[in-house]
């Protein structure tokens, strides 16, 4: 169980509050107008932005003191998810052991197979297509096997078909993990997630049923959707 308890995030004159809970295994979309703070919410959860007040807990334990890498989550950024000077296999290995000393290469190979990159482990990221790079980053998240997966629009640059493919892959691989996905595309939300968090006007609303939300959009969402 992930809980945001009276959380306030403050950055210069921007602020965002959140006060809600989300259960394991859920697929939650984070949607809202540009600049409303979708990425900020995820970055605060991942530990890159300190909270001004409140707590974030996972299974009752506060996360506030944990560094980003120690938190029970993996995060995929919009870009730069792979080190360009390391091979794909090494990039995946970092998910198991950042020193790359105790890396089970069979596990890496299996993960590559599962995301459809079998045999490409020796390549550098630059030799992969955009979709393949996303798959590699996803494979690393798979290896890390953390109970939460945060997606900060990692597939934004991919075409519709490829993006749908990636979302299906996430669905397949994430299993029991809680997935939070930032998106600006309502279709993604509707296709992928049972629940949606609306971030607008300085508030990250509690997760609501996606279907219900889009059937009867609150004013902020309606403005965003242009309906």
């Amino acid at each position, binding site marked *: 169980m992930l809980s945001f308890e009276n959380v306030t995030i403050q950055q210069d004159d921007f602020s965002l509050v959140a006060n809600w809970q989300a259960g394991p295994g859920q697929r939650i979309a984070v949607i809202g107008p540009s600049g409303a703070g979708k990425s900020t919410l995820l970055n605060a959860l991942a*530990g890159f932005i300190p909270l001004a007040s409140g707590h974030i807990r996972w299974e009752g334990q506060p996360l506030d003191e944990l560094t980003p*890498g120690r938190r029970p989550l993996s995060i995929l950024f919009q870009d730069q998810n792979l080190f360009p*000077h*390391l091979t794909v296999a090494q990039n995946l290995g970092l998910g198991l052991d*950042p020193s790359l000393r105790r890396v089970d290469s069979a596990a890496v190979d299996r993960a590559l197979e599962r995301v459809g990159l079998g045999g490409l482990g020796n390549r550098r990221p630059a030799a992969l297509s955009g979709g393949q790079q996303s798959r590699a980053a996803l494979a690393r998240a798979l290896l890390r096997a953390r109970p939460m997966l945060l997606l900060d629009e990692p597939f934004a640059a991919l075409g519709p078909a490829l993006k749908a493919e990636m979302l299906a892959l996430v669905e397949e691989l994430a299993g029991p993990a809680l997935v939070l996905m930032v998106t600006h595309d309502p279709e993604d939300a509707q296709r992928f997630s049972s629940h949606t968090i609306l971030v607008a006007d300085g508030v990250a609303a509690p997760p609501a049923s996606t279907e219900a939300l889009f059937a009867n959009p609150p004013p902020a969402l309606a403005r965003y959707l242009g309906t």
Partner: protein
Amino acid sequence: MARRAGALIAAGLAALTLGPVAVVLAQAGRGGVGTADLAALRFTVTQAALSALASTACAVPLARALARRRFAGRRLMITALGAPFLLPVIVAVLGLLAVFGRAGLVNGGLRLLGLAPVSIFGLGGVVLAHIFLNMPLATRMLLQGWQAIPAERLRLAASLDFRPTDFWRHIEAPMLRDVLPGVLLAVFAICLTSFAVVLIVGGGPAATTVELAIYQAIRFEFDLPRAATLALMQVGTCGLAVALASFFTTPGGFGAGLDRQADLPAPGGWRQLIDFGAIGLAATFLALPIGAVVLRGVPGLASLPAGVWPGLLTSLLVALCTAPLAVSAALVLALARAHGARWLEPVAMLPMAGSQLVLGTGLFLLVFPFVAPPDMAVPVTILVTAVMALPFAYRILLPEARVLVADYGTLAESLGLCGWAALRLLILPRLRRPLGFALGLTAALAVGDLGVVALFAAEHGATLPLVISRLMAAYRMEAAAAASLLLVIAAFGVFWICDRWGRAGAEL
């Protein structure tokens, strides 16, 4: 465009550095080098290599500590790192002796403890002096490397729970493989031509460098071809070092960042202790000799001879003309190199290994048939100082120029951004920090450089370093110490102004 301009400047640079050598070589004389010269070459290379290794070895932990720790006085310390490099040689040596010499602090302490004194003179002393002079420069160059790590990489590293050793292995080590060879090369080249320091601290003729052999060849034997041959040996050695360095340089390839702000991870525990230990040690090691220079200079400040002020003005004028000249030429070279003109590398480094005396002599021979050398004092000083300072500026600009071209080269091209617009909108803003540092360094070097000016000196209009050497020759050591302090203040002042401009708005 950038490549063509680069080629033009490189050609001019090669002509300016090799032309005078050729002129000197073409004069009548016996020429040829002997076994003593080969011994000198061996010693020169040994001391330069040791000095380069030691200086960089000390600089790495210091730069790392400065990059990842935040403490009061950090900015001041980073700026002050420019100071030792700018000291006139004899001033720096006297400062070092005040700490490590026979009557210095260290031996004073040893005597109090009833221990035998240690002597600074010898190869160890040469290396120590070179560490004092060059480690701060190396630190500044390395610090730039740390600061150039994009925030995106730091974020990714944090999200993957990199421990300090992992961070070293996957981020810092590749960065150093990119930056370190260039830093080593720069220090090596500086130490290669270091002459007075080596002789004074070296303790005797065993510490004979190629540059001293050149002095002997020109002054007592008047065997110009021999001097030119020796100078070419020196240049050849540096060329070899350039080749070695570029062989060992592997581009870090960290990719573009979006200028997001992020701090480097600052691990606690013993690592924190080590970092602050390194900072404390370095601060003490650098501050004590500089403090000695200040203390020696202060008593005479109130009664500075009048001749010092015109000297200061001349030096500042030279600096004002030299720095933009050197830095703009270096910028063009660095951008052309970043666009792939690999052959520029050795050319841009040429002046660093050039013998100042041979360069001056050659220029003198070129100029003399047409104009009276004293009439050319100021232009020649500006030109030569700019040429000599150029490699430093080039070294400072190159890494970030490469990043700039790799990250935004295509974007700029696709926008048709070139010429002045590119300079104003892309290059100046993106390279502002290294540009400020390079401007400051070259300006300060110009203030402090005596160099080849001696051959072109006029009766009036002496530069401040020349005034200082005149004061010393006239027994006025106290006035010379005060004038040296003035020189240090002036050099450091221009350095500080430029460096600050460069860092304005950039978090350090």
